[in-house]
């Protein structure tokens, strides 16, 4: 391998095309990545980013097109070929073994890991890498002790130690708290300067793209629609390229009179699946026409709390009142019937049934309604008609209501879930990460729908990792950290930095600000 200089082309794709039944995921993609640059690949969900990434890492074969690495044409049979050529990948979902130590995870799959493990030598080499990038991590810590940011650091170290010169990162900031994100961005920038680590950077978070990348390639429906130097781009222009139309970043917050309390949570504590405290001593109330925002990085107890309120998990202490009635022990079905609507964070695993048609998915909220089921027999005509109406009203892109839910894109599926829950006219809506993973267009749609429900007088409990979303929508904000509310702040006057620091667990810092 010849010496690589800053600015050399290290990876080139020519005419990459990948077709799936009924869909062209990548349509003649041409681009190149240079040494020392951060190259962002931007696109909505379903634009073809994941496919392209899998092709570059050898997980998927392209139907057409060629890939050149360091000037040589390559044909990846598996990710192992890509790794051997110096391509590393940090997946969105962590691929670490949580019961093992950091060092053991780094060594896993490395050619050094033969029959006899030389832990000492590895430890020293990894330490050198850490020093070079200013990483501080205990190599003997078990992975399950680590925070999300630290786990990601381990993944990066693992790739670098394996000799990666090109690092592909999939949505690298999606699970990180704001301070961790900043730390990551610093490190990445350092890597491109210090050494010839090269980082194509794949995301749909626009501010991040703008702050760190040098070049941006924008994908839309499998095609490249723009190649830009980041310096020339603005948030607006990138968003326009991504979805093909102008986006309004300012939501119109309706002036709604806040009414009576609809949900009262009193000193609720919840255990998680492993019998650890997931949420402790939570008290708050949600009123009619109010959006109560819980800000926090996933895994700090929001999910168990949402499940406990929806009746899917037991609260081990405390009381939950809905419209002044104690519902602490009611089943989830009874809560649905009383007017509590839950939008779960996992659209595909929980919020919908992939093999069911949209009509059958709609039935998930109607099978218990005697207007749609008489003498145990489902009124197929009626539910189908409702499905058609909702598809129109919620602008769901589908040829007909008999399409299986799994064939819908993330945004369209979320619209369908919203349509299903909101059409029951719930008095309380628990929305758990309602815009997670959605593209800008669908995100805007979901947020506006939430505001419409607020206008109609529903109380909304909004759980989100997206600080901007929380700040824009909430009337009151509770930053949540390690199962506790750090504070409850008024939405209008709270400082972004204060909320950010509180959701990362920094109580002192919050006081200084």
């Amino acid at each position, binding site marked *: 391998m010849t010496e690589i200089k800053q600015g050399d082309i290290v990876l080139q794709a020519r005419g990459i095309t990948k077709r799936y*039944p009924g869909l062209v995921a990548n349509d003649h993609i041409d681009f190149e990545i240079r040494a020392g640059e951060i190259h962002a690949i931007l696109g909505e969900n379903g634009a073809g980013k994941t496919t392209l990434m899998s092709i570059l890492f050898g997980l998927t074969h392209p139907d057409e097109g060629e890939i050149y690495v360091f000037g040589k044409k390559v044909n990846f049979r598996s990710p192992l070929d890509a790794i051997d050529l110096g391509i590393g990948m940090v997946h969105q979902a962590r691929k670490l073994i949580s019961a093992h130590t950091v060092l053991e995870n780094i060594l896993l799959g490395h050619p050094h890991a033969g029959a006899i493990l030389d832990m000492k030598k590895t430890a020293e080499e990894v330490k050198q890498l850490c020093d070079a990038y200013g990483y501080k991590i205990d190599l003997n810590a078990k992975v399950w002790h680590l925070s999300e940011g630290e786990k990601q650091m381990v993944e990066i170290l693992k790739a670098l130690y394996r000799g990666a010169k090109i690092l592909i990162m999939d949505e690298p900031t999606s699970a990180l708290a704001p301070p961790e994100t900043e730390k990551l961005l610093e490190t990445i920038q350092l890597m491109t300067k210090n050494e010839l680590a090269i980082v194509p950077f794949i995301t749909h978070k626009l501010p991040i793209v703008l702050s760190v990348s040098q070049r941006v390639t924008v994908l839309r429906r499998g095609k490249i629609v723009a190649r830009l130097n980041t310096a020339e781009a603005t948030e607006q222009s990138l968003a326009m390229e991504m979805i093909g139309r102008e986006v309004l970043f300012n939501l119109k917050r309706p002036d709604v009179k806040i009414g009576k309390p609809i949900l009262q949570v009193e000193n609720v504590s919840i255990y998680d699946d492993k019998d650890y405290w997931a949420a402790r001593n939570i008290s708050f109330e949600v009123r009619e026409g109010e959006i109560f925002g819980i800000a926090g990085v996933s895994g700090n107890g929001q999910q168990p709390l949402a499940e406990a309120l*929806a009746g*899917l998990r037991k609260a081990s202490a405390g009381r939950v009142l809905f419209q002044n009635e104690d519902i602490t022990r009611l089943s989830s079905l009874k809560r*649905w019937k009383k007017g509590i609507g839950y939008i779960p964070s996992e659209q595909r*695993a929980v919020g919908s*049934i992939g093999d069911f048609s949209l009509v059958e998915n709609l039935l998930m909220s109607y*099978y*218990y309604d005697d207007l749609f089921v008489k003498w145990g027999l489902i009124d197929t005509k009626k539910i189908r008609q409702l499905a058609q109406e909702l598809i129109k009203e919620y602008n769901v892109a589908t040829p007909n209501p008999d399409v299986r839910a799994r064939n819908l894109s993330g945004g369209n599926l979320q619209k369908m879930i919203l349509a299903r829950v909101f059409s029951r006219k719930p008095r309380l809506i628990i929305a758990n990460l309602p815009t997670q993973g959605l593209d800008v267009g669908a995100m805007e749609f979901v947020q506006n729908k939430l505001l419409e429900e607020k206008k109609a007088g529903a109380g909304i409990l909004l759980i989100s990792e997206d600080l901007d979303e929380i700040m824009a929508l909430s009337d009151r904000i509770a930053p949540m950290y390690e199962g506790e509310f750090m504070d409850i702040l008024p939405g209008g006057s709270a400082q972004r930095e204060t909320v950010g620091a509180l959701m990362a667990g920094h109580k002192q810092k919050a006081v200084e600000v």
Partner: protein
Amino acid sequence: MKLAGYTLKLEKKASFSGLEAILISVVAIAFALFLVGFIFLQAGVNPAEGYKAIFTYAFANSFGVPLTINRAVFILLSSFAFIVPIRAGLWNIGMAGQLYFGALSAFGVAYAFGARVSGAVLSPWVVIPLMILGAIVGGGLIGAIPGVLKGRFNTNEIVVTMMLNFIGYWVVAHMIKEGGPFMGSGGEGEGYKLPVSIQAPVVSGVSILTLAIALILAVLLYVLFTRTRFGYQIRAFGHSPAASRYAGISPFKIAFLTFVIGGALAGLAGYHYFGTVPNLNQIPKNYGDFGDMAFYGIICGLISQGNPLAAIPLALLFGGLTSGGRYVQGKLHLSYGIDYALLGVLMIVLVAFQFFFRYRFVLKKES
């Protein structure tokens, strides 16, 4: 794979039509018969003649046809017992145990009316319906055991139903063998014979009462899954326990009820074969063979993709192959077990061909 400028590729299918499913099943059956042909050749028998003998006996012979139909009804009921829980994603492989208990309860009802006393004359209008009810309750109660354990403690239902098969087998042995209360007058390890007065109606050697019940059940179950609230809940749970729990469907209710219904259906199969088939009307010495035959219900249920109507032709085919296979074994002097070999190969091929429900080969010209 490349061939003279063409590439052969495997593509994942988005969906498949009912017609395609039928076509694939027919091709699979033909392929299985082709494979078993080698066994005939090895035994020195022309496969074409072997098959002709099997199929004419099974489907066009006055002795064979009633046997085929009686067995088909048995396999069909067993497959319903499998289908109801499997639509909820739960595996009932305890049809054998459930049908033993179903048969024991049915014979227990008759026993209570004094049927074991020789020369007893009983009212069929009272006893036969009660025997059917007894079979349903007996099978259903045994089905309730894995249902409760699964629903309450998430115990592995496969293990529980499987173990109950052994319990059922030995309880039957205890009841009918020497000294057992249901012992037959001959005392040769078989159960007592039902008196003529409460033997179920038979036309041309076919037990028409249970045949009618099985066919009506096929339609009812079809309606259950396609049109009713309960069927919807079962299917939703089968596709995604997490999503159905989110929608307010109780996992306990689904596990409990599907296993009770499954057990009851298997119980009916037990009453059908031991209680109504002519020349039997008793729990025979080789009752274990019929427990084994109930396992064809699993294959039947899997191939029919849980569709109770599609299970009917399959049950008929399996019923025909068991009766015809056994017949040719004697007639053509084949070695023991040709019928089992035939069914075994057929099952493996049918299951292997399920692959084509999801994939297809495409021939593409190199560009």
